[in-house]
């Protein structure tokens, strides 16, 4: 895949890292700004500030006033959005190539001199509360997921939801936002990825011009992982108006820096990706204990989770789903996987890597994420080789290492009648 594109890179004096990936497929450019900050950098009392701050970034800076960011971008045929995760905050814009200089000016303006006013904060606070009501308070899976993270993590910031607790969202002050901005939104904590129809040298020159005089930031406080050892299964039961019971099961996984992370990618495909995957075949089609089943193994900077979620029918029984799930996981740890299953998983991972790199936006996002999680984008391009080296014994070994009943946390939701 790396033969399909070249990455040009530079680091400015203020620490801003810039990567340019030129291509001529479409007359469009994607610009991603990765800030190495997410909810893991928060503390109790200020949970949700990363996400709330993401909203603040669209409300004006010194040169371009309130609402000008999207006004100017859209007038130049562009669109923008952003997301916040446990580990990262990512801003991105897609736009016609002609607008590159303009968009760099917009992005640099808000990195240099964001306006943080009480008025804007109050308004965005209300918007975020609506977002929380939408995604968590009125969404069954959102409630279960929030409960699960609080059940698993006792000390690590992964304990709270990215959107934050409602009480904290209500309490965040302007001064908190200002300190947050100075610390985490400095060029030294950011990486710019520019992919698409651009000329690399000219683009790097433009970036230097736009960002060069933004001062470097302070060093970012390290995140302490004080998570204690889990000494046995944990369970939580929710009672909430719903049509069907819900179930979410988590096992403690490694951090992305652990070599097992890649092996777990393979394990995830074997267990739960596709109609022919082990869990879907067994739980949905053979035993029919669930309507749908899935697994989520997402890379995280600190030790993450192997999540298993099941959608049940209204008369479904979580205990039966749990039993069937645990049988499958135990079988994997005991008997391992076949060569054919392993090859199938690798074929899928290979196709997946190819697909995410087919568009300019996909390349910028994938390579930027690799750099954030693996330490370098080159390591991302070598993923294919890593996957190729995973053998059946390694898959069986990670199953045995991580899918331990004592390291399990289980949330079930039992429907109750409406109020």
């Amino acid at each position, binding site marked *: 895949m790396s033969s399909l594109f070249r990455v040009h890179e530079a680091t400015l004096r203020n620490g801003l890292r810039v990567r340019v990936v030129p291509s001529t497929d479409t007359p469009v450019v994607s610009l991603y700004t990765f800030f190495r900050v997410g909810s893991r950098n928060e503390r109790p009392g200020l949970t949700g500030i990363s996400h709330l701050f993401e909203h603040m970034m669209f409300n004006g800076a010194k040169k371009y006033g309130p609402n000008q960011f999207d006004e100017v971008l859209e007038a130049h045929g562009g669109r923008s959005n952003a997301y916040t995760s446990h580990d990262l905050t990512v801003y991105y814009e897609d736009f016609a190539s002609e607008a590159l200089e303009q968009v760099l000016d917009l992005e640099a303006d808000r990195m240099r001199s964001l306006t943080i006013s009480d008025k804007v904060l109050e308004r965005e606070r209300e918007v975020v509360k*609506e977002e929380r009501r939408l995604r968590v308070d009125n969404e069954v899976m959102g409630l279960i997921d929030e409960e699960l993270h609080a059940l698993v993590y006792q000390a690590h910031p992964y304990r709270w939801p990215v959107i934050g607790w409602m009480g904290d969202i209500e309490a965040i002050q302007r001064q908190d936002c200002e300190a947050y901005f100075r610390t985490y939104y400095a060029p030294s904590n950011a990486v710019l990825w520019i992919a698409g129809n651009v000329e690399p040298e000219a683009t790097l020159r433009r970036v230097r011009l736009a960002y060069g005089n933004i001062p470097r930031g302070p060093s970012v406080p390290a995140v302490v992982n004080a998570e204690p050892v889990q000494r046995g299964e944990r369970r939580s039961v929710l009672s909430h108006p719903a*049509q069907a019971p819900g179930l979410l099961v988590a096992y403690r996984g490694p951090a992305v820096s652990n070599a097992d992370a890649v092996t777990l990618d393979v394990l995830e495909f074997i267990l739960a990706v596709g*109609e022919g995957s082990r869990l879907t075949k067994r739980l949905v089609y053979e035993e029919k204990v669930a*309507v749908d089943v899935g697994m989520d193994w997402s890379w995280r900077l600190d030790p993450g989770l192997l999540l298993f979620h099941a*959608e049940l029918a209204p008369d479904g029984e979580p205990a039966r789903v749990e039993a069937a799930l645990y049988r499958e996981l135990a079988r994997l740890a005991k008997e391992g996987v076949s060569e054919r299953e392993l090859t199938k998983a690798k074929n899928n991972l290979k196709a997946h890597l190819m697909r995410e790199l087919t568009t300019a936006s996909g390349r910028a996002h994938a390579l930027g994420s690799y750099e954030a999680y693996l330490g370098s984008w080159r390591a991302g391009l070598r993923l294919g080789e890593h996957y190729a080296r995973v053998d059946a014994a390694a898959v069986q070994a990670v199953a045995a290492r991580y899918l331990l009943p004592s390291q399990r946390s289980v949330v079930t939701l039992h429907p109750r009648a409406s109020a």
Partner: protein
Amino acid sequence: MKHAERILPPRAHFTTEGGLGVEVAKRGRVPLVSIRLVVQSGAATDPPERAGLADFTVRLMRRGTARLDADALNEAVEFVGGTLAVFAAEDFVALAVTTPAEHLPGMLDVLAQMVREPTFPQHEFDTERDRSLAQFANDLDDPGLLADRALQRALWGTHPYGHDVAGNRASVQRMVREEVVAFHRDRFGPQVSRLVLVGAIDVASARPLVERAFAGWKGGPTEVAVPPPLTQTAFEGKVLVVDRPDQTQAQVRLGGLAYRRGEAVSFPAQVMNAALGGGFTSRLVREVRVRRGLSYGVGSSFESMRSAGSFSVSSFTKLKTTRTLLEVTLGEVARMRERGPTRAEVKKAQEYLAGLFPLRVETNEAVASALADLWVYSLGPDWVDRYRERVRAVTRGEAAQAAARFCFPRPAAVVLVGPGEALARAGEGLGAVTVVPATELL
């Protein structure tokens, strides 16, 4: 003469001996191919009392063919790193495959088997029906989805576009295997289908593969059912409240009739909509989110199908600001209807729509989907290739006319999802209020 800029890749066409039209577009540098087969027998052709039959049929097609049972079929696709998705829309059903180019022959063979010789095993039918029924039940926990379903009913009533493509509990409960078999037999055939291949494949290589996979697929239906047009929404000037007592947030939808797919008015209408509620700087976003913090999301959009189309506004807010949200959104739509967009808004909307258009056809899948749509709706390649030019040619007057025509010149159908009593009060004055339990929608 100025040539239109070309957005679509060069294409080649042929027709199989059995009469299946095939379009091949070679593009890109990645060794992947996207395949899309569309059949013009969508949810609008579901028989009365059997809403969801088209969708159910196409989903069951992947659960067994004369030569492959469900496991073998999934293995054939998934082993090589391919993907298979099947779905129904109002006007067509689609089977979409992506595959590494080297496995194209095998994937075409699987696709052809599914279309030509599905066996619809009884036990798979039973499982799929049970899963559908469970899904309907769980959908009751999704307020946004309930609101979308309620709007569909409020707009279209008993019209063929008036039911969700998946049907509902009663209709799926009544289905029997023979109906699925009959639907496939009567509604599937090469004359009403189109096969599109996009990516690392040229027509010379594709043709023998397609001819072999689809050899002998002939006959079948020749006529495409065309639903009648609609002149008035079912809930024009009325309020449909879907009662969900435990919600702390109200889902809000407003809707009216608009244009059919392929009407020239869609260009000024899209420009007008970008100004009203399309982009992030639209009037609705500004007034609802930016100025008042009433919601996280608000937008307006057009949906257009073969025989008719709709215009709708969608948002949500905490219960106590529901009335305010309704007043602000209806007020903005009315202002747009009466005065149209400003010149500056038109210009910005044009740049916005034209600038982003190439991204809508950036992947093989998106190109395959666009080519299939062009065929389904008889639009011709200019519809895509000249899209940017036609958007840029829209005048303020044309956009204002589109606003006058579509921004609820007749009273909107109003849908509210949340606690019934409170929302019935919030909807007062907007028309007769009907409160239904959520279960009635599914």
